[in-house]
């Protein structure tokens, strides 16, 4: 079997205020997986993803990305790591005053000199790539519109296109549908599935809703208080497991 694309070994993250967000988390992610991480707010899901692309610095432990430990790399190495890891966020994190196309082109920032990018000198190749990914998420016709004039679901699709323009081998999605309505929720998740299946990009996605987990995940990890409490197939999550993850009295909510 090929080696995992990402392995966490005993990852610990303690914030300066003393909060232990991750208490020694270890797991492997195989190439092409759609891994979903579930857990309550504060369980450490977001911290985990942010440690992987080093938006946060882990306190200890190893993060092996394509075989190389990147838990402690600094400066230029962090940037070249981030180039290969796309990320989308709960609040989309687009630049509101810029056009959709310009936002997607931001995915190329890591590949060009600062000076060139400041003058907006993106190559024709980059522009073609950006448009191609906008077509993939179905909003190429909005390319010229300002990002803040799109609906939430459309903004999240722009964010997916921005991440894809990086040409990443992994896509991290931090609660990508938590601020969307149920219908839009499925559209965005469907595009993530498409990215995973058609482009073969490994996806690690934080989610709240168990019904979405069953529909999209190939594997599930549940975090509680910074520790893994469940790891396995989405179909094996029983009512009992659900209660263990979300606490007594939790009811499964279906989104249709």
């Amino acid at each position: 079997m090929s080696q995992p694309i990402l392995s966490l070994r005993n990852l610990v993250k303690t914030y300066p205020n003393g909060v232990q967000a991750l208490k020694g988390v270890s797991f492997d992610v195989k190439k092409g997986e759609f891994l979903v991480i579930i857990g309550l707010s504060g369980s450490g899901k977001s911290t985990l993803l942010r440690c992987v692309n080093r938006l946060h610095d882990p306190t200890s432990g190893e993060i092996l990305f394509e075989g190389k430990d990147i838990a402690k790399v600094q400066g230029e190495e962090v940037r070249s790591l981030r180039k290969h890891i796309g990320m989308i966020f709960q609040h989309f994190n687009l630049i509101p005053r810029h056009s959709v196309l310009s936002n997607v082109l931001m995915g190329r920032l890591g590949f060009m000199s600062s000076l060139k990018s400041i003058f907006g000198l993106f190559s024709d190749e980059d522009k073609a790539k950006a448009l191609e990914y906008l077509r993939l998420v179905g909003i190429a016709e909005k390319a010229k519109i300002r990002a803040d004039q799109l609906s939430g679901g459309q903004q999240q699709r722009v964010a997916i296109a921005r991440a894809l323009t990086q040409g990443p081998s992994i896509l991290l999605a931090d609660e990508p549908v938590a601020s969307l309505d149920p219908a839009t929720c499925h559209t965005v998740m469907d595009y993530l599935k498409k990215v995973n299946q058609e482009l073969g990009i490994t996806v690690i996605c934080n989610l709240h809703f168990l019904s979405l987990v069953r529909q999209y995940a190939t594997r599930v990890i549940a975090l509680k208080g910074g520790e893994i409490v469940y790891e396995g197939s989405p179909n094996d999550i029983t009512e009992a497991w659900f209660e263990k993850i979300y606490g007594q009295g939790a009811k499964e909510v279906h989104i249709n």
Partner: protein
Amino acid sequence: MKNYIFRRTFFDSFVFAYLAMILLVVAGRPTPEQMLNLGQNFLIFVIAMVIGAALSAGLNNSKNPAIHTLGEALFEPAYKKAAKAELPWYKTFSAWQLITFLVVTFVVGLNITKFSLTELLDEDGFAGAVRLFHGLFSPNFEILPKAVLNIIETIFMAFMATTLAIPVAFVLSFFCAKNIMKGPVASTVYMLLRTLLNFTRAIEALIWAIIFSVWVGIGPFSGMLALMIHSIASLAKQYSEMVETVSEGPIEGIQSTGATKLQTVWFAIVPQVILPYISFTVYRWDINVRMATIIGLVGGGGIGTMLIQYQGQAMWPEVGCIILVIAIVVWGMDQASAVIRDALK
């Protein structure tokens, strides 16, 4: 918590020492030599503060809220305030402490400013003022062409000062923003720059004008330099406050693509701050036109220098004409900048 005790004690002891010093001056009738003995007087003040601190501690440690001090009333945490019984104000020590402080300060103020109704209503003095106003209200328009040329010089001084300050303040603003300057080296640079800018701003543009008029000679150049220095410090502070309020989301979004620090600032922060920046800059130009007039008084060139020349010779009709020109231009700038800033919202 400790912080609150310190503030309470310092406030109370300062008020006490201040009242004690006034009592000493009124009752002790010190000689002018004694009044000028700064070292000795400072020592007395410090001793009074120590006594005040002891009094503050004594009164506030009492269980009776009626005798708690003004410092306590001002700085006590909300939970302590909530635990206390409501008292009518005239039954509290702190209210009488405040009243004493205000009344004494007002009386001392009357004395120090030599407030005098007889001077104000003195017939000779009043006649002089009437002559002056008569001159001002019958402006001599013969000097109008010269006044117009001079105010154009003033407007350009303000324009150049603002324009040259923009790029410097723009760059400085990012180094003066706490949310960008993280890490040990960066936060040291942040602290140093902040202190330097605060210090620069604390020195009035008028003082800078005096410094530069010695350095580069009297004239519009020294006035412009003075305004520029002041504008850099003020704009950098206002700009950096805008940078500190930007939302984190776009910053994370850009960082996650592998962007450099410079790219992150340019693509995630600049779009969020550019409109307020322009608005502040227009307002600064407006302020600079007004300040350029004042700076002219100490040799900074422009309309201010012309004004001080005619004023020195008591040529009131000419002064009247100059003041009229200044008023019209300042009013116009004020209106224009308000309209532009409104449009930028």
